[in-house]
């Protein structure tokens, strides 16, 4: 057994103290033959510190495309030759999307907009949309609207948004290679305000942007320092027309190493499967990740791409005897 796994068994499983950056790097560089042991340990950590429930979430894009930012992985930037056009979702369709999500048994519904930060029009749409959902659908509402002002943070709290997603996307040292129109520190500032407001912080990123394995470890350590309530873990799905459109997808084994490593860095967080798992891991790998530290999933479609049918994921959870976290457990 590699020394790092022995250390993690005592420190993370036993004491609930996450691995530091060096420890995460050691897990990320484990030889293939030790990956199953790392996943097994990560699963034990998840079961001990989080429990068997899996949090299910659906997401929808309220405002698609036409974003002024240049996040190099994103097909919604207006600066690239992506085929994604700008489109707004109306309130009745937003409510219907929330109903579709609730019908899967999900406890979370996240409203997302492709913007630098919300303007008055978007905040008005959010206010109306959140009110309409809360009136008709029994589900928790989260939001992801880019960088916020303090006033906007306060407005979202008042609307009843209980969790705010703002991904750091990658580690601080690599971020300028991925985004040049704003800084990692600006994102951090929004996260600070969200935390202080009492909303739950949801912050993760994308693996496979060209970062080194050392930078992947740096990212895990920086997320652990932030200590978010939830970490959505995406794997790059290269989008046509974007600067990262020709990058290779993350190898399945590396994705599984990362899942185990991020769980061992953050034993108590909600670690969510987000975009890209279908092409990086496929069905078998998805199962391995759920048995290797993942305890939340986005079901159904994503913002501009499609996911597995929700029924497939729910059947998998049933097969694994992992109960879906009930809405009552989130309140």
């Amino acid at each position, binding site marked *: 057994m590699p020394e790092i796994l022995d250390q993690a068994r005592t420190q993370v499983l036993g004491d609930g103290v996450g691995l530091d950056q060096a420890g995460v790097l050691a897990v990320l560089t484990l030889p293939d033959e030790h990956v199953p042991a790392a996943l097994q340990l990560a699963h034990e950590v998840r079961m001990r510190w989080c429990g068997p429930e899996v949090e299910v979430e659906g997401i929808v*894009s309220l405002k698609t495309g036409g974003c002024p930012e240049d996040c190099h992985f994103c097909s919604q930037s207006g600066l690239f030759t992506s085929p994604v056009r*700008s489109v707004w979702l109306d309130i009745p369709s937003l409510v219907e*999307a929330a109903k579709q*999500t609730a019908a*899967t048994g999900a406890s979370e519904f996240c409203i997302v907009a492709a913007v630098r930060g919300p303007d008055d029009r978007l905040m008005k749409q959010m206010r109306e949309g959140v009110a309409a959902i809360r009136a008709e659908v029994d589900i928790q509402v989260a939001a992801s609207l880019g960088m916020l002002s303090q006033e906007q943070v306060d407005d979202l709290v008042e609307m009843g948004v209980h969790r705010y997603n703002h991904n750091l996307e990658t580690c601080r040292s690599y971020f300028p290679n991925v985004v040049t129109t704003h800084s990692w520190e600006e994102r951090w500032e929004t996260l600070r305000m969200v935390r202080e407001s009492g909303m739950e912080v949801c912050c993760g990123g994308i693996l496979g942007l060209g970062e080194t394995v050392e930078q992947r470890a740096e990212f895990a350590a920086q997320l652990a320092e932030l200590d978010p309530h939830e970490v959505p873990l995406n794997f790059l799905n290269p989008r046509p027309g974007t600067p990262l459109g020709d990058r290779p997808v993350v190898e399945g084994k590396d994705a599984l190493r990362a899942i185990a490593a991020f769980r061992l860095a953050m034993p108590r967080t909600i670690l969510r499967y987000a975009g890209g798992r279908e092409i990086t891991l496929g069905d078998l790998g998805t199962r391995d990740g759920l048995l290797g530290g993942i305890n939340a999933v986005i079901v159904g*479609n994503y913002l501009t791409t*499609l996911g597995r049918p*929700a029924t497939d994921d729910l059947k998998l959870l049933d097969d694994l005897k992992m109960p879906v976290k009930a809405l009552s457990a989130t309140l």
Partner: protein
Amino acid sequence: MTDAGDPTTDGRTAESAVLTSDATWCDRCGADATAGPHPGCATARVLEPPRYCGHCRRRMRVQVLPVGWSAVCVEHGERRG
């Protein structure tokens, strides 16, 4: 629901997803679809909605929902999957 003549019923069948029966353009990459199949696009389309109108090559306004999607061409109307 899909266009009349579209052999796809659930938007997830790779071989049939890219081309409607009378399409001229690939609905994923927008290139000429009459010269031959686009196997890469067909594979990708299993996990993507269409982006180009197969009839006129216009970029469509696409809304992805938790279940399904809608793609609107200003000239040829809406497809759903």
